[in-house]
């Protein structure tokens, strides 16, 4: 085989820039997926301004803020894990990754209690309490459950992904020369963070 072909062949099998490009494109699809929901939110917020205002007051700003801080911090630890692996500090990288998973878990626990409290108060899709309220409030909570639920699902997926990466890092599959997989998980994680950055004010703050 000629020299040229070998060069290309190697190029085919290891193209980190290409991989990153693929990941970014995938992130766009996630972005637009949530974008579609934001469109729905925007329209209903516009249609039912007053009722959204009333409904939003029922959400606990404290829990929302806490979760925002948790998620932002987990984004930091994720990016630090990548710095660490690039500096060939395997232990520190694993440490940061575990912290990230831990924070994500904390986020989910928070979320669980928040949802449970709402459900306990009888506010969930199809409940009598909710159906007794105005259309705008039904929609607000419908959106709240669907959007935070979908976001929560992404957090779970992120946790699994980072968990797999931790294992890869331990095995050495992810190392200071080849950390594209970890980076991919990181990019995904940051996107989950960005989506929350928008969900937080839209549901908890704009009252």
């Amino acid at each position, binding site marked *: *085989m*000629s020299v*040229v*072909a070998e060069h*290309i*062949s190697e190029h*085919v099998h290891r*193209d980190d*820039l*290409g991989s990153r*490009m*693929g990941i970014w*494109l*995938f992130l*766009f*699809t*996630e*972005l*637009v*997926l*949530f*974008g*579609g*929901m934001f*469109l*729905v939110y925007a*329209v*209903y917020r516009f*249609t*039912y301004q007053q009722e959204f205002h009333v409904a939003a007051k029922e959400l606990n700003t404290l829990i929302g803020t806490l979760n925002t801080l948790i998620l932002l911090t987990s984004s930091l630890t994720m990016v630090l894990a990548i710095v660490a692996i690039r500096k060939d500090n395997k232990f520190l990288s694993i440490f940061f990754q575990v912290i990230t998973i831990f924070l994500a878990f904390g986020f989910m626990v928070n979320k669980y209690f928040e949802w449970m409290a709402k459900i306990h108060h009888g506010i969930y*899709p*199809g409940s009598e309490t909710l*159906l007794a309220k*105005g*259309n*705008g409030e*039904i*929609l607000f909570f*419908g*959106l709240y*459950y*669907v959007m935070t639920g979908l976001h929560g699902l992404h957090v779970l997926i992120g946790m699994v992904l980072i968990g797999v990466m931790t294992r890869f890092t331990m095995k050495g599959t992810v190392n200071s020369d080849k950390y594209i997989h970890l980076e991919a998980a990181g990019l995904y994680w940051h996107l989950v963070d960005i989506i929350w950055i928008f969900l937080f004010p839209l549901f908890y703050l704009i009252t």
Partner: protein
Amino acid sequence: MHDKEQSVSYLDYKGKHSGIFAWILSTDHKRIGLLYLMASLLFFAVGVTFGFLMRLELIAPGRTIMDAQTYNSLFTLHGIIMIFLFVIPGLPAVFGNFFLPILIGAKDVAFPRLNLLSWWLYVLGALLAVISVFLPGGPADTGWTFYIPYSIRSTTNVMPALIAAFILGFSSILTGLNFIVTIHRMRAPGMTFFKMPLFAWSLYATAWVQILATPIIGITLLLVTIERMFGVGLFDPALGGDPVLYQHLFWIYSHPAVYIMILPAMGVVTEIIPVFSHRTIFGYKFIAFSSCAIALFGSMVWAHHMFTVGMSETAQVIFSLLTFLVAIPSAIKVFNWVATLYKGSISTDAPLLYALGFIFLFSIGGFTGLIQGALSVNMHIHDTSFIVAHFHYVMFGGTGFGIFAAMHYWFPKMFGKMYNMKTAKVGFWTLFVGFNTLYFPMFVMGWLGMPRRYFDYLPEFQIYHFISTIGSWILIVGLIIMFTNFIKALRSKTSYTNINPWSGETLEWTVPNKPPLENFEVIPTITAGPYEYKDNDEILTKEDN
């Protein structure tokens, strides 16, 4: 890499797996392309059968061969199958997969395993759609648009159909993602963006639409699913939801989806015309940019499907205006194609016939699109059979003929066999006549007020329905001629060794027929554009021999 493997055709080489697994677990872009081809043709046959049955039902007013519920399910399934399982994957996933890497001088797509995953998702989605037919409750009867609130009230198997469409969307996204990275990262040395064959350009524009628009339908269908399961109220008018918002979201994807379907077909036509005129393409850059312009404007015109729902006047004006503008890049393409024929050396083989047939039928589809873009006229012809005729001219006359053109054009390369040219031409003309007989009367009756999705109709429309049904029979004869011609060629023992039957200049004509694994022994270095013919004298002498 063993040298021996290099020379064996993609149909025959031995990989890790054997038997059927050598196919369904293969990451070779050509094998995946062929898998897609077989699957999508299978579903095309099913879709055609449904269409044929519906036409038969409509040959006379009243019940003819089926009841209304069956009819409603048939047009729903016909739509879902034809759109999601045949027309959308028909060019990108089949011919894009097979030829894009070869056209740009690459050994495979950027993410071969992802490519296989996308085929599997396609199969999964397809299976789910098939299963939905047989589950108790009966096949979905909502139309492929799943309009709210009917889709949350219908007791048929809407859920499996929704989830199937969701999964198929995912498959389409992965294909698009793969192509963008492939085009950016895997072009052969020297192949700049403006030296790429225009089919690659059209796939590039398509891929962007696939990536950006498809998630919207994904989330929308997901929301309908959630709506059906939990009664959240996001679209349900009974709970304050807005059924018009559903339509907006649906068409934000589904209008660009039309361009996912038509752009690659335009790309195929752009490949074929210069080859069979044996001269360079007229206005390369204009054609390339018009693909991008179509992708851009195409995502800005969705609400022209909704002129009658009572949108704001501003929205009506904006969307009507943009709709007219989106016609411009398509017009530019058509003019450039016609100009490419000028002073060529034209050989009227079957692929060119299909390409010219495409231009004619697509033009009719496009022009009737303008008629619907006009607000006042749209009030009259929206949701009539005029629309049905229009989009069949675009989707079938356009994309369908584009797919047939691609099949005739690349057949010898893919299979190392040659079909009978005379039969192919007979097939084309039968199809062409059948097509117009089938769909043209629909324009007339649509204008006269025949609504679409009607199981029954007023007696005054019978003559048009009758002609149309006769047309469907001619069309099917045409399809049978075409496919038996292919099958005969595939079964013949003589293999076709001419690697460049049409004297093309693009890279696929430099590799052996039935290209080997990884396509090229040595990745070529590109110095010239894809349509720079230097042997304009030779081609004439070659023709004489």
